[in-house]
């Protein structure tokens, strides 16, 4: 307990120190160099518009920063190239919307210089005017300002061509040799106003090809990951059946969480809505945005539901590890358990965030985007950063921990040897971890080995956290890492305003940490208390449901072990049934074709009830079948069963059995009783009921000699209409509410009343009397009955 906190504290300290040193050196966000904050960029953009006669003072302004990864890749692949250096690392898109009419967009470099703009077209009727022709010097100045190069670096493509939109000027830089990066500039002036300025930075195919985002690794990871995810959901569903799956889906946990997830995605979409407007006002149209705004949360909510339903089903593999995660969906979501897991995992955030930087430093490889650039110029950076902690990436990690870890455990626990288990389980876990994190984050471009290594490091940390601080802790570490990265990405920007946002995020993070720390100590501490009524019910109910589901399988397996149908013998009808008091029972009946061609009918009762009895019941069944193949003598058969049972049960258990061996033609029955209740012999013709007792010790009690000595066989001759009723003590000892037992007398009377009925009707009639006696209650013991009726012919009314 203390060790894991020591580790967490150490991880936090080391991670934070490492981030402080390494983040400004290796993090890709340092390449952006945002010199201004949102308001300042907007002000500059308004300035460029104003210089060209468009006042945007009363227009609503939007700004969003975009990282230009392709340009960064170019700079890294062409170090020292002056041309490549001119390509911006990022751009700030601003958009101004008037109350009506068309708006203005201005794109800026991080250092505040313009990259281009598009203002409302001046609605002068005339084409290019002399004003526009005389603007060459202004245009050249603007061009130099946009690129940072001098006019002499450019090739003039069209220096002043009059068109409908005005006077156009076009230049190209760096395009002399094919395969070089180049910039196309276009500036259009109309009515003396430069209403459009464009810079088109083009990266040659030969270079962009080196940096494919969808690498074979990532594609392979996605494919294998999807299959594993599918199996992770399918296997528990297939094993548990539709019922538990439906219940798991109905469980408040997935509903609550998926609702939250959908809401979060919706909220974050709304927060970004302003920025989406920037893009939307282009040409793509608002409809697409609205559709994606609705569909994305629905899809993610659905995914959450499926993944969490699978997780709930798989949770039984590691119930303790998933406890905090499941508690989130209950009233006890604010508890020491959840707070402890969240805090413990959260402390690992800086370390997790620092792992890619470590690889970058050691391997001398540049990192690419590993942060949320939507956050950089967000109006409300701190709440946005907090919200972005719950990301779609978390869904991937939930799927990994909730579905694939159990898959790894389940698959490896099927192995025969302990040795195979010892390496297969961690190997499978690591495989899934690498696939997951390679898919979620491949921070290096064109260096797959480094990406695999990065995924392995993140995966290893996550697996460690899963075992130390549970699933919730592992997820908290991801969220915390994201928060630290967000803060770092803002703190490394030169703009003071952005830095203060970064500090705001740090403060919020520490605030969260302190809340969790206090909660982990002060929150309602007793877990039992926390679980409360509803919580405890939820816990026990699901545990109970799990057991019941298992028992249902066991019950049907056991029922299938009993003969499906009694044998069809000319002149006889046979019927039997077995109703366990609990889910599984220790009673059994069987019909055996003996080696001498006779038919054995047996009813047995294992001492005790429930699972232990059920285990010995199956053993007895097996022993009986085996013995019946070797002998036709019931005394020998029972002797053999006794011998083996005695060896196995270690005198802790015993089995009683009554067995009749019928010779159908001769109409004789040889009968033995090993400690079992006497069989009822109803002699129809004589109107007489006899109890077939006889000496005999229960199976598994005495040694072979004593057993054989006491066991006596009796042969009786049957007459048409006679019935033999084998039963277990669950029938005669069935107790009603007045604590009365059904007893032998009522049984004998019931058998007498069934005179003239064939076996099945006899059985049903007796059982009906028992249940009438119990007045709807249930027998406390297993209730087994087997009836043999000698019937010459059956009338149409079912009577003999």
């Amino acid at each position: 307990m203390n060790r894991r906190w020591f580790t967490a504290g150490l991880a936090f300290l080391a991670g934070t120190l490492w981030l402080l040193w390494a983040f400004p050196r290796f993090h890709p966000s340092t390449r952006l160099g945002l010199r201004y904050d949102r308001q300042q960029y907007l002000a500059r953009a308004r300035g460029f518009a104003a210089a060209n006669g468009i006042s945007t003072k009363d227009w609503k302004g939007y700004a969003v920063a975009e990282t230009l990864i392709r340009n960064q890749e170019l700079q890294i692949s062409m170090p020292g190239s002056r041309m490549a250096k001119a390509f911006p690392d990022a751009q700030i898109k601003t958009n101004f919307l008037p109350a009506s009419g068309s708006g203005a967009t201005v794109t800026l470099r991080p250092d505040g210089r313009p990259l281009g703009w598009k203002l409302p077209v001046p609605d002068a009727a005339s084409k290019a005017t002399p004003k526009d022709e005389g603007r060459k010097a202004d245009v050249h100045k603007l061009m130099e300002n946009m690129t940072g190069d001098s006019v002499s670096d450019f090739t003039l493509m069209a220096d002043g061509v009059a068109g409908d939109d005005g006077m156009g000027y076009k230049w190209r830089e760096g395009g002399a040799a094919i395969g070089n990066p180049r910039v196309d500039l276009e500036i259009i002036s109309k009515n003396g106003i430069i209403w459009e300025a464009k810079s088109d930075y083009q990266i040659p195919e030969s270079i962009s090809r080196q940096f494919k985002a969808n690498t074979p690794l990532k594609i392979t990871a996605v494919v294998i990951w999807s299959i594993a995810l599918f199996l992770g959901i399918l296997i528990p569903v297939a094993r548990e059946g539709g019922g538990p799956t439906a219940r798991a889906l109905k469980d408040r946990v997935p509903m609550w969480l998926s609702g939250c997830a959908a809401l979060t995605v919706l909220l974050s979409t709304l927060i970004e809505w302003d920025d989406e407007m920037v893009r939307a006002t282009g040409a793509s149209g608002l409809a697409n945005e609205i559709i994606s705004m609705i569909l994305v949360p629905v899809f993610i909510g659905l995914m959450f539901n499926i993944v969490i339903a699978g997780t709930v089903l798989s949770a039984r593999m590691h119930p303790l590890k998933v406890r905090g995660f499941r508690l989130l969906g209950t009233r006890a979501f604010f508890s020491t358990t959840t707070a402890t897991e969240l805090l413990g995992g959260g402390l690992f955030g800086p370390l997790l965030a620092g792992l890619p930087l470590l690889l970058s430093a050691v391997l001398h490889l540049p990192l690419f985007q590993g942060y949320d650039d939507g956050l950089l110029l967000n109006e409300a950076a701190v709440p946005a950063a907090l919200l972005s902690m719950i990301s779609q990436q978390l869904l991937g990690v939930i799927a990994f921990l909730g579905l694939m870890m159990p898959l790894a455990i389940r698959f490896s626990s099927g192995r025969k040897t302990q040795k195979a288990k010892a390496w297969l389980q961690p190997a499978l876990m690591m495989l899934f971890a690498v696939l997951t994190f390679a898919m979620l984050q491949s921070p290096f471009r064109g260096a797959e080995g480094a990406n695999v290594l990065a995924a392995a490091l993140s995966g290893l940390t996550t697996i460690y956290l899963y075992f130390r601080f549970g699933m919730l802790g592992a997820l908290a570490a991801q969220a915390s890492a994201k928060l630290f990265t967000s803060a770092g990405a803002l703190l490394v920007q030169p703009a003071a305003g952005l830095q203060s946002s970064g500090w705001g995020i740090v403060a919020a993070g520490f605030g969260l940490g302190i809340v969790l720390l206090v909660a982990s100590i002060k929150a309602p501490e007793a877990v039992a208390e926390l679980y409360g009524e509803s919580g405890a019910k939820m816990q026990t109910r699901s545990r109970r449901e799990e057991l019941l589901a298992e028992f249902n399988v066991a019950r049907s397996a056991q029922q299938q072990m009993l003969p499906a149908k009694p044998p069809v013998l000319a002149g006889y009808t046979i019927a039997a049934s077995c109703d366990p008091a609990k889910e599984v029972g220790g009673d059994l009946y069987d019909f055996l074709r003996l080696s001498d061609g006779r038919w054995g009918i047996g009813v047995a009762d294992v001492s005790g009830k429930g699972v232990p009895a059920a285990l010995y019941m199956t053993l007895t069944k097996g022993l009986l079948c085996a013995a019946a193949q070797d002998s036709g003598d019931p005394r020998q058969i029972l002797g053999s069963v006794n011998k083996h049972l005695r060896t196995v049960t270690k005198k802790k258990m015993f089995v009683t059995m009554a067995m009749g061996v019928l010779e159908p033609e001769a109409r004789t029955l040889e009968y033995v009783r090993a400690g079992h209740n006497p069989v009822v012999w109803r002699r129809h013709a004589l109107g007489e009921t006899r109890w077939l007792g006889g000496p005999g010790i229960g199976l598994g009690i005495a040694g072979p000699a004593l057993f054989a000595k006491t066991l006596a066989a009796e042969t009786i001759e049957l007459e048409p209409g006679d019935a033999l009723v084998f039963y277990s003590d669950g029938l005669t000892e069935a107790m009603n509410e007045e604590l009365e037992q059904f007893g032998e007398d009522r049984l004998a009377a019931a058998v007498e009343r069934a005179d003239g009925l064939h076996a099945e009707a006899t059985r049903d009639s007796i059982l009906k009397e028992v249940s009438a006696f119990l007045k709807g209650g249930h027998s406390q013991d297993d209730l087994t009955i087997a009836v043999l009726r000698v019937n010459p012919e059956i009338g149409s009314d079912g009577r003999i």
Partner: protein
Amino acid sequence: MATNFTVQRSTTGNIVVLALNGFLDAHTAPEFEKVVQQEFDGGNVRLIADCGELTYISSAGLGVFMSFIEDIREAGGDLKICNLAPKVAQVFEILGFDSIFEMVPAVADAVKGFENPAKEV
């Protein structure tokens, strides 16, 4: 109701009499088992189970008798059962325990049985 079971121990010479009272079922059998085990471990192998106040015995209770009898006899002792109520006696008989255990009407008969070992069943 399940815990309504007690064992009272007394001695007659070197014979230990265990007077059973109440329900001997799956819940109470471990208690009885512990008592018998203690006697056996303490070297007391001449045991009498006085079942006069035993109102019910389940198969688990019978299992306790069964699990000790051989060890006790091998150690030169015996576990005799006496004073069975008719309903309980019937359970012992159905199971065939009467051919394994010495079942006598009263404690005195069981004591006599120990003193006169020739009268073995």
